[in-house]
C-alpha cells in the first residue's frame, strides 16, 4: 500500500458457487487509487466489474485478497496506513458509507428514499450525523439541489414525481452532501436519455473536479470513461486485461480485448 493512496485493492477476488462448481466472478485485481483520481472500470456484462465495485465498497466480502481504505475517524489522529475493510466493524462500515463514501446506484430508486421529499433525501445524512436545526437542513438541501441543477421548487416533492434524470441528480446530491472523499458509481448514466446523459456526465465531471472526489465508476460505455476518468481498468471474464491512463488505453489499446472494445464503438 503506497503512501498517499486512498483506496487499495490487493489481489482481490470473489467466487460464487453454482451447480456445485466454483466460478470466480473476479480474481487477482490490484490497484491503488489516489485522492482526486477517477478510475473507470470498463467491461461488458459478465466481466465482473459490478462484483469488483461491490467488493471495494464492502458490500461483499473478498474471498481472496484485501481492500484497504485510508479511513479517518473523528476524534482520532489520522493514520498513516490503510485500514483493511475486512477488519472494520459493521458500525464503522455503516458510518463510512454515510460520511466519507458515496454510492451512486444505477437506478436512482435504489439509492433514494422514495417516500420522503427531495429535501429530506438530501438532508438525511446530515440528520444522521446529528444536525438538528430544521432551517439549516433545509438551506443545505436547497444549496445542493441547486448544485445538481434541480429546481428549488421541487424540494418538497416526492422523488417519484421527478424524471429519471432528476432522480439521478437527486441521488448524487444525497451522496455528496457529506463531502465524501470517495464515490462509487454503478453505471450512473445507463438507461437515461442521451441528452439527459450528457447533462449528467457534465455535472459529474464538474463536481468531481470541484470537490476533488476520488471515484470508481463502473461503466460499459467508453465515452463515459473518456469523459470522467483519469484511469481505466478493462475487465474481461473477471480479470483485468489492461489498465492505465484513460486516453492511452482508449487511443493505443494493447490487449486484443481492449482493441476489440475500442473498435466496436459506433460513432455517430
Amino acid at each position, binding site marked *: 500500500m503506497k503512501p498517499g493512496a486512498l483506496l487499495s485493492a490487493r489481489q482481490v477476488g470473489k467466487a460464487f458457487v453454482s451447480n456445485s462448481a466454483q466460478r470466480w466472478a473476479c480474481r487477482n485485481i490490484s490497484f491503488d487509487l489516489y485522492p482526486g483520481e477517477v478510475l473507470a472500470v470498463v467491461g461488458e456484462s459478465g466481466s465482473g466489474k459490478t462484483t469488483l465495485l461491490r467488493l471495494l465498497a464492502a458490500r461483499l466480502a473478498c474471498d481472496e485478497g484485501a481492500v484497504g481504505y485510508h479511513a479517518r475517524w473523528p476524534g482520532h489522529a489520522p493514520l498513516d496506513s490503510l485500514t483493511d475493510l475486512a477488519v472494520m466493524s*459493521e*458500525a464503522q462500515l*455503516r458510518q463510512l458509507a454515510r460520511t466519507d463514501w458515496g454510492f451512486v446506484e444505477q437506478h436512482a430508486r435504489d439509492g433514494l*428514499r422514495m417516500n*420522503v*421529499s427531495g*429535501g*429530506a433525501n438530501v*438532508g*438525511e*445524512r446530515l*440528520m*444522521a*450525523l446529528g444536525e*438538528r*436545526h*430544521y*432551517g439549516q*437542513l*433545509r438551506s443545505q438541501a436547497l444549496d445542493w439541489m441547486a448544485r445538481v441543477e434541480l429546481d428549488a421548487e421541487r*424540494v*418538497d416533492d416526492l422523488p417519484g414525481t421527478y424524471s429519471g434524470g432528476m432522480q439521478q441528480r437527486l441521488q448524487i446530491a444525497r451522496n455528496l452532501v457529506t463531502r465524501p472523499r470517495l464515490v462509487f458509481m454503478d453505471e450512473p448514466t445507463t438507461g437515461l436519455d442521451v441528452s439527459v446523459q450528457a447533462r449528467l456526465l457534465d455535472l459529474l465531471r464538474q463536481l468531481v473536479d470541484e470537490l476533488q472526489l476520488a471515484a470508481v465508476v463502473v461503466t460499459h460505455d467508453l465515452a463515459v470513461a473518456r469523459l470522467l476518468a483519469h484511469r481505466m481498468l478493462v475487465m474481461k471474464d473477471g480479470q483485468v486485461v489492461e489498465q492505465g491512463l484513460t486516453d492511452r488505453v482508449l487511443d493505443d489499446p494493447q490487449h486484443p480485448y481492449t482493441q476489440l472494445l475500442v473498435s466496436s464503438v459506433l460513432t455517430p
Partner: protein
Amino acid sequence: MTESHYNFAFLDERTKKRIRRALLKAVAVPGYQVPFGSREMPFAYGWGTGGVQITASIIGRSDVLKVIDQGADDTTNAVNIRRFFARTTGVATTQKTRDATLIQTRHRIPEEPLTASQILVYQVPMPEPLSKLEPRRRESIKMHALSEYGLMHVRLYEDIAQLGAIARAYDYPVMVNERYLMSPSPIPKFDNPKMHMNPALQLFGAGREKRLYAVPPYTRVRSLDFEDHPFEIERWPHACALCGAADSYLDEMIVDDQGGRLFVCSDSDYCEERREAGHVGTQQAVTLTNVLSAQDAGGGA
C-alpha cells in the same frame, strides 16, 4: 375470591417467571425492546394482551390495581380488564390513582403525579417507533443497535416541510436515557413530559408483537424535535367544563346537532377528585362559530 381452576393472575408461574426475566432485561436497558414469549390470552390481540401479561406477571396479593382506557375507569375495556384481574387474583381494585400500586393504562398517563411506590403498565400496539419508516425488522434492529436514528428525524423534517409543523399528536417518539429511540405507545404528546424523571416504574407490553420494554424510575425521556421547531404539548383555550381544570388533557364531546361541544377531563378520576374538592367548571357547552358563515356575514371576497 379466585376462580378455582385458574392460577393466580391466569398465567402459570413459569410464564410469569420468563416475563419477569424479560422485564429485568428491559429495566436494565431502558427503552430497549426485549422479545418475550407472548401467551394466548382470553381476548384477542389488539385488546391489551401485552399490558395484561405484564400486569399478570408482577401483580401480588397486596397490590391495589387501577385500570384505565383513554383515561377513563369506566369504559368497556377498562372494566373488563379490571374484572379479569379481580376474578383471577382477588386483588383489591380502585379507581383512585392515589390509592393504586399498579396501574394498567391504554393510551394515557394519569394526571395525578405518580410516586416511587407505583408501577405504570402501558398497552402498546406497535413497539417499534421506526416501523413505518423501515418496515424490515432486520434493518431496524441494526439501527437501534448502532444508534442510527437519522431516519426518524427525516420523518419529522418531512412533517415540517409538508405541514409546517411536526404533525405527530400521539405516539410521539422519544429518546430514552439518550440512547434508545422508543415509542411511548399511543399516548397524546401532551403526556410525554410526564415520562421524564418519573419516580414510578414504567413498563410497556406489546402482546401481538411479542416485545416489552421499560423506563426505570428517574430516567431521562426526551421528545424528539429540531432546535428551531422545539417540542410543544397541546393546549386548549378552554378549561374542563365539569371541574374547571386548566392543566389536564381534555376530551371533546359533541353534545348537540348545532356543533355544541363539551370539553371534559380525559382522566375521569382526576376530574372526580377535583369536583369532590369543590372545584366547578362552567358546566356549559362551547359552540364554535361556523367559520364560513362568519366570513359571508363579514363581506364578500
